[in-house]
């Protein structure tokens, strides 16, 4: 009889515990998708301006002191086929049919830059258990600290763009990814890929300004001539001090024809928005960019995590319940009498 009553009490406590530990309503500590910081830095990649020269790939290797990767038989040139722990930036190619026309989906070809998107709400930062992946509160650059990293590769698994990569070829392998050349910012250098881009296909600047520039281009008529900035895009009304922070000279503009753009700035809203933005004439998915919802997965994951464990309130409440029940049910051996329990 007492056993049955205990059992029911146990059911109640245990059931409540299981339910409260595991229920996931997006209520309490719901965490919204994070926004880009106001001074966020980024890149604008315009596939219609890209000529596929790979100068940015070489410059990136140099700036990050990465070794060449050989995939061809002769091993003469750096020929990575994808980004890797030793290649943080790559221009990939879309090919179709006869490949006659640039920026055409049918019988055409197009280029696409592959490198870190510097998400407003990065999955890698949320996933990293040891804060080796961090997002700079001012510039928004997603940086990596090898000295903190445990090499669990959760960031590799978490990123939908497939960006953080691990160096499997080394017993002390690190994660490799674009950090927007943040180590060169102090010397006035900005992202090496944008510094060397001869056509302005990769442009460095504040994401806010880059987004405005992207929208300006989308509003123009294809084939029309327009002024295209190269290197770094200045902030509107930028003063001398602000300009002096960066080394490269301004006025690198040139006249170019407007591309036949899709009316979509990739990265404006994807996964909560990214600081690297892309323009293309060829469907983004066909060019290798994933189709992503406007909500970041980091927000969903952290909402679940903090609903269950915020302030440790729920675990402690459940522990109290379980302790109360267990205290009644655990009988030390020496106090146990025969027939005490069923």
């Amino acid at each position, binding site marked *: 009889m007492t056993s049955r009553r205990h*059992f029911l009490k146990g059911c109640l406590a245990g059931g409540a*515990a*299981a339910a409260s530990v595991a229920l996931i309503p997006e209520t309490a500590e719901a965490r919204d998708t994070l926004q880009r910081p106001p001074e966020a830095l980024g890149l604008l990649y315009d596939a219609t301006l890209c000529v596929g020269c790979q100068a940015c790939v070489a410059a990136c290797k140099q700036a990050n002191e990465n070794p060449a990767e050989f995939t061809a038989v002769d091993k003469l040139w750096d020929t990575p086929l994808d980004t890797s722990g030793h290649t943080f930036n790559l221009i990939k190619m879309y090919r179709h049919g006869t490949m006659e026309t640039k920026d055409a989906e049918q019988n055409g070809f197009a280029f696409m830059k592959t490198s870190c998107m510097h998400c407003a709400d990065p*999955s890698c930062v949320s996933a990293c258990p040891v804060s080796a992946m961090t997002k700079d509160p001012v510039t928004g650059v997603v940086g990596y600290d090898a000295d903190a990293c445990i*090499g669990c590769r959760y960031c590799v698994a978490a990123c939908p763009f497939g960006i953080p990569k691990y160096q499997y070829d080394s017993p002390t392998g690190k994660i490799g990814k674009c950090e927007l050349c943040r180590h060169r910012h102090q010397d006035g250098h900005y992202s090496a890929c944008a510094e060397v881009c001869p056509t302005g296909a990769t442009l460095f600047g504040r994401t806010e300004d880059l987004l405005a520039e992207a929208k300006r281009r989308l509003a123009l008529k294809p084939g029309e001539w327009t002024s295209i900035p190269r290197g770094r895009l200045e902030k509107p009304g930028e003063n001398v001090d602000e300009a002096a922070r960066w080394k490269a000279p301004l006025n690198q503009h040139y006249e170019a024809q407007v591309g036949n753009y899709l009316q979509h700035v990739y990265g404006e809203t994807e996964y909560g928005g990214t600081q690297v933005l892309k323009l293309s004439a060829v469907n983004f998915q066909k060019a290798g960019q994933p189709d992503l919802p406007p909500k970041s997965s980091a927000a969903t994951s952290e909402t679940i995590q903090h609903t269950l464990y915020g302030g440790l309130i729920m675990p402690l409440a459940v*522990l109290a319940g379980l302790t109360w029940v267990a205290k009644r049910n655990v009988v030390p051996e*020496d106090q146990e009498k025969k027939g005490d329990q069923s």
Partner: protein
Amino acid sequence: MSAHHPAAPVGGKLFNTATLVCAALIAAMIAVLFVRFIFGLGAVTNLNDGYPWGVWVVVDVVIGSAFACGGFSVAMLVYIFNRGHYHPLVRPALLASLFGYTLAGVGVLFDLGRWWNFWHILWPGYANPNSVMFEVAVCISAYIVVMWIEFSPVFMEKLGMKVQKQKLEKVLFFFIALGTLLPMMHQSSLGTLLVVMGPQVNPLWQTPFVPLLYLLSAITLGYGIVLFESCVTASAYRREIELHLLQPMARIMLGVLAVFLAVRFGDLIVRGALGHAFAPSLEAFFFWLEIGCFTAPFLVVGSAAARRNPARLFLAGVAIMLGGVLLRLNGFLIGYDTGLGVDHGWNYFPSIAEMLVTLGMFAVEVLAYIIITRRFPVLPREAAAH
């Protein structure tokens, strides 16, 4: 730890075919690990940037720790739901859990690319409470300590530490409560690990309810493992099967399993994801395989008569274990597609060397179980019980 039927060492020889095979597998594992630590992960594994987590994470840790839920499931039954008569099952189940978890904890180190930094995960300043993996790491580490405390009366009995044992038993209830809470937390979080991967995980396994699914499946898996272990132990040591305990426990297992399946399908229907189960894809095939394994126990041990048949109980245990394996394998590997299938062409199947390490880890567990049950009072004393 109170014992209604006093536990006793099984005794017998420690060198036999089973232990020697285990030793050989362990030696192979050590050889592979030697190469891994000298030359890096790429030298022995087929891991790549499309599949950064292979069997060392998914099987050794995620599945390995779920297999180790016997201790948690049975302890919950005995101490929280006050079903004292299941007591003889506690020690053997706890022993298997102890090794399962301890090895999962050690196994993580083999997979960590920068393992010498492993302590950062628990160190303030490095630790990131937003990370699901942080939660998993904290709870698993704490649980390993709690389980050694829960199990320590066994060693104290053997070593004649009466006073210490009495002192410990006065506060044991707290560790038992903690030992019930911690697995609930990390077994659910092992599922939550998938959430941040977002749409890279097939909608059949990517859901905000994944923590509840992993928790419920871990509890049933715990009972499934106990069925399996009890049958194997009985046959290997030529002991009587504890049918009077396994039979009602199998019924409880079916109850939890029914709840699991209700949540599983309810979630798929509400999210409108069930359509993916009817796509002509590998993922859909493995989904039905998983569901098949989870429903099989109802067919095998659904009736009271069937539950009196040890062979059927064993089969039901195996089916549940396979279901639990598939749920995890499907979410982390088969239903995972990095970069959402866009032109990456990544593939993964574990290398022989990788599988040798996984086998070696299970061999350590089996070997330790044999040595401890033969030399320490874990299994109920045969003669005393009947």
